Every structure is written in C-alpha cells, then in structure tokens.
C-alpha cells in the first residue's frame, strides 16, 4: 500500500506541476502586456510575513511527522495544529491582499491582463492550500484520536502534498512579486 501511495502521490505532483507550469508561463508571457492600469509595480506589496508563515509550515509538519515516528501522537497533533494555523494565516493574508487590491485599487480579474493572470495563478495556488488544509485537518483529528500512529506512511505521503504546495509558492512568489513587479 505504502509503495503504491508514494508512486501515486509522485504522479499527482508531476501532473500538478505541469498544471502550474502553464499558468506560470502565461503569467510570464503577459508581464508588461496590460493595456491599462493598475500595474503590478503600483499595487503589489511583498507578502513577506505570509511567505514566512507558509514556508515555516513545511518545518512544523516535518517536526510533527518526526514526533509521530517516535510514537508521540498527541505531540504530533499539536505540531499539525500549528501547521494548520500557519496555513490559515497565509490564506487570511491572501484574502487581505485581494481585498486591498479589489476594493482599494479596483483591480479585478477582468481589469487587465495583470489582473487576469495574477488572480488565476495566486488563486490556483490558494485553492491548493485550501485542499492541503482539509487534508491537514483530517490528519490532525486522527492524530488526537490516536489512529494516525498506525498510518504513519500515509501521513508522510500527505505531507509530501503540503511540501509541494509550499514549493509552488516559492515559484509563484518569485514570478509574481520579484520578476513581475
């Protein structure tokens, strides 16, 4: 089962990578092609705090798994809970950013090519964070109920997905906030 789960998850991650790659290509191709504002350099701010939260959640989930391996299911549950909080803070930060852009600057998905590609790429990533959070919440519940200990490898495979979501953010951050600004 575990061997299957590993290969299956790798397959899913390959497919997801390919999906994101196309949105990234579209973003890069349309940089500077908007016919009207607002433009990225006018409205985008570096989401440093958000990024720190999401990336450190990769560390907390790794710590949770290490605890799980030693049999400390409750401790693992606490670390998983921390991971969930970090992910939720990231989502809240994205929501705040979008609120500021939509209400404050009038930038929507239909405003210009920047809006189109920005909301699509960041939104695609955020939707993956939501799926990841759903998985994490399940893991957390199972950790506190004690059943997760018997499914250590499944938890590990699920954590791969979370690491993938984090890794994608590094690419999205680089493309949207560093290259595209």
């Amino acid at each position, binding site marked *: 089962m575990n*061997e*299957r789960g590993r*290969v*299956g998850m790798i*397959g*899913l991650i*390959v*497919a*997801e990578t*390919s*999906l994101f*790659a*196309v*949105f990234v290509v*579209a973003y890069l*191709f*349309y940089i500077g*092609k*908007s*016919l009207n504002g607002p433009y990225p350099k006018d409205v985008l701010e570096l989401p440093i705090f958000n990024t720190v939260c999401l990336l450190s959640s990769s560390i907390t989930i790794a710590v949770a798994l290490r605890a799980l391996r030693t049999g400390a299911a409750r401790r693992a549950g606490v670390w998983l809970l921390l991971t969930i909080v970090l992910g939720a803070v990231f989502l809240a930060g994205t929501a705040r950013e979008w609120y500021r852009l939509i209400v404050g600057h009038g930038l*929507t*998905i*239909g405003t*210009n*090519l920047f*809006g*189109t*590609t920005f*909301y*699509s790429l960041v939104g*695609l990533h955020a939707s993956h964070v939501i799926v990841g959070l759903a998985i994490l919440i399940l893991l957390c519940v199972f950790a506190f109920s004690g059943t997760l200990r018997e499914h250590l490898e499944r938890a590990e495979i699920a954590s791969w997905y979370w690491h993938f979501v984090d890794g994608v953010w590094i690419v999205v951050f680089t493309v949207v906030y560093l290259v595209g600004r």
Partner: protein
Amino acid sequence: MSVLADTMASRRGAGAHRPLLAVLHEWVVTVDHKRLGVMYVVSGLVFLVVAGLEASAMRLQLAWSGLHVVPPGTFNQLFTMHGTTMVFLVGIPIVFGFGNYLVPLMIGARDLAFPRLNAFGFWIFLFGGLLLHFSFLGGEGLYGGGAAPAIGWFAYAPLTERAFTPGNATDYWNLALLVAGVGTIATAVNMVTTIATMRGPGMTLGRMPIFVWEILTISALTLIILPPLTAAQIMLLLDRFLGAHFFDTQAGASAVMWQHFFWFFGHPEVYILMLPGFGFASEIIPVFSRKVLFGYPMLVAASAGIGLVGMGTWAHHMFVVGMGSTLNAAFAASTMLVAVPTGVKIFNWLGTMYGGKIRFGTPMLFCCAFLFQFLCAGLTGIMLSVAPFDWQLSDSYFVVAHFHFMLVGALVFTIFAAIYYWFPKVTGRMLSERLGRWHFWLFVIGFNITFLTMHVPGMLGMPRRIYTYPADRGWEIWNLVVTLGLPLQIVGILIFVINIVISLRRGAPAGDDPWDAWTLEWATTSPPPAYNFDVVPVVSSRRPLWDLKHPDDPDGPHE
C-alpha cells in the same frame, strides 16, 4: 480456500438467469479492472459509431458540389463533434480500457493499484462524454435552442471567446473535456503506480510485455501533457464566465498562446493514442509469426524516444501562424527526428515477421494492413513536417487524409486487431474468422478508397472544414470517390457488430490460450476469475508461457 470456492461458485452462477437490475447494479458498483476495462472499450465503441455517423453525414454533404444534405451551421457542429468524440471519447477510452483490462493480467497482478480511483476515472469520463453529447439536446439550455459546439476540435481562440460564440455550446465542449481529462489523469496515475509497484514475481521491467511498456510510456506522457490542456481550459472558463482576458486579443492578450497550450497537449496526444496501437501490434505480430519479437530493447527505447521527442514537436501544427524561421526550422527538425524511432519500430515488426511461420488470422490481417497504412501515414507526416510544404497544404484535405491514415489506418486497425485477439480472453468465446475476414476486406478496401483518394483533393487545394465547394475546381469526382468508400466501411463495421453479437452467444469456446500465445494473460482462464490468477506464475523470461510449455528449452538463456 473457502473464499476461493465461493468466488468460483458465484462466477459459475454469474450470467445465468439473474435479474437484469442485479446485473446492472453489479456493473455500476464494480471496481474490478476487467469490468471497467470492458466498459471503457464498449463505451468507446459506442462513441465510435456516433462519430462515424457524424462523419457519414459530412461525406454525404461533400459528395458533390452544391449539395444541401445538412445546413452549414450543422456541418460546423458535425466536424467539431466528430473530431472531439474520436480523440477524447473513442481513442483515449479504448486504449486506456485495454490498459485497464490487460496490464494487471500481463504483469501478474490482482488489480490496478487504486481500484476505486479507477472506477472514478471511468465514470467521470463517461459523464464528460454524455455531457458533450447532451449539447445536441440541451445546447444553450435555458438560453435558447439546443446546439452542439461548432468551434473545431482544437477550439482556436479567439473564436471561443464569449464575443464570438455566445451561448453555452462552447462551454459544453470545454467542461466535458475538462472533466473527462481529470478522469484520464487519474487513470494515468493509476497505471504508472500499478506498473511500478505491482508486478508479479520475476516480472522485471525488462521482461514486461511491450504493450505494458507502451501503457507506462503514455501514462507518464499523459501526466505531463494533459494538465496543460486542463489549465488552458480553466483559463477559457475564466475568460467566458468571469470576464478574464487570457485569450482576449482586444485586451492585448495573445490568441496564439491557446494554440501553443493546445498543441503542447494535442500533438503528444497523438502518441498517447498511437503507442498502445504499437503495443497491440507488438503482441500480435510475434504470436502470429511464431517468432520472438525482434529487437525488444530497441522497441522499448523507441517508445521512450517517441514520448520524449514527441513533447517537442507541437508547433508543427502552427507553421502558418508566422512563428519565424528559427522556430519553424526547430519544429520541422524535431518532427523529422520523431520519424527515426518510429521507423525503428517498423523494422522491429518486419524483422519479427521475416522468416516466421505466419498465420493469417484476422488479428494478423489487421496488423498487416496497419503496417502499410502506418508507413504511408508516417511518410505524409514527414512531408508535412517540411514547413514550406506545410504552408502550401496546411488546413487542406491532404492534412485530413494524413491524420485519418494515422488514426484510422493505423490506430483503429490495431484496435480491431486487438479486439479479435483478446475477445476470446474477455468472453471465453472466439469471434467468427469468416465474418472477421469479411470485416477486414470490406474495411481495408473501403478505408483506402476513402482516405487514399482524399489526398488528391487536398493537393488540388480543397480546404478542410468547408460546407460545400464550387463546381469548377475539379474536386467533385475525387469527393465522390471518397464518399463511395463509405458504404464499404459501414458494411464492414456492421459485420463486425453482428460478429460480436453472434459470437457472444454462439462463438466456439476459446479455452485458456486459443492463439498459443506467450504472455501471462493467457495463463489464466477465459474469462479470468475476479482475482485473476489461482497461482501467480513466476516469470523468468519475456515469454513466461513459452517457458511453461517448453520446460526443456526456456527463453531465459537466449535473452
């Protein structure tokens, strides 16, 4: 042991006088790879008939200049639905359906790695197919009269933008293929995982049947090239429903980007369809030539090569877009490069037949026709890879003839071969050889009358996707001949269907191994039990059944 006995007993009971609803329920809730495989292939064949009827209507319309068999708008819908159906609802389900059925049997596994995911993949594919065809009835749904999409199977932007195709017809195309694509990705993950982790004892990678190699190759390819189509379709969805501008040239976007995304999927997709066809030929030709497959490692390497190089050839569909000489030259070169591993395969099959003791059973007949027609399709492919030649003939009937030679002359022929070859395994009964020969000869003659001739109006300049044409171009007689090949093919298909129906009831019992074959699926009963193998055989060569039948002369030392 008692579980086994129970299963055996329930098998014997199966099929005999049970209420239809119970049988139906069993098929709907099944997660068995064999049943799902059969459902894939059967639904693919049903869609094949639908798409064939659409094609027939188009051929009647084009039989002579100035005819009015169908209205112009309907004609656009017909070619869109025909192309979309053939690629997404006939080709993909049939090749993955055979993969479903055969891969676990060929590698000595109990089922696929994720049986429930497999069932999900099938049902969501079927839902996508039904959604697409529902457009004939519902079309624009509450917004107006029913209408099928009329955007061509590759749905070029900006025609697909809301400004140019209002209503919901385009959304049917988009959503149907989006969900069907998700099912295909799920199946691809399943196949890769199964082949990577569930091979039976002794079944090393180097001993896998070629068909399994081809399924592994196309599944890996699917994981890389299908999500870009999904991504592009999500973009189109955002454009049409949320007012985004991904392909909106008015907002400074590029319509050519859709072409790149589509063909990055669309071209390797041809290999996803063709490689399993090569797999069928590579299983059938050795058995019917009574010889070991010639050059097994090269054949595997050629498949991987086609997969890899095939991902870098997509823009040869876009020579007329005006990409510039550098890109044109690069894509022309990569396209010609693909011909090398493909040519290797032809020699593999010829080398297998050379000096063999060939039995011309129906599967072998289809494979022989495949060899000729595939070669012809490959050669016109190389002609079209030359950019200036493509400028002259792009979007003409020459291109239509080329890819029908590939997808019908090569793929559909190998699918027929595969059905004649594995039908006994699936049903326990042989298909009639006599009717099979009628099917073969009618179809091969009809096919060539239609599609060999179709090259000519293309070279005379007849564009594809036209509703009708003026009388003074000299195209009428060629179009008439093209249409005249149609009745032969239809009768051929009818005989095929009759053959299946009759043989299901009264076909000669097949036994476990009617072809004296060598791969593992023939080691179990026909049809195989739900658990596939009583005892999973230990494999020690590429032809495990040969080893079993000839313990004095095993294959291993010769490999």
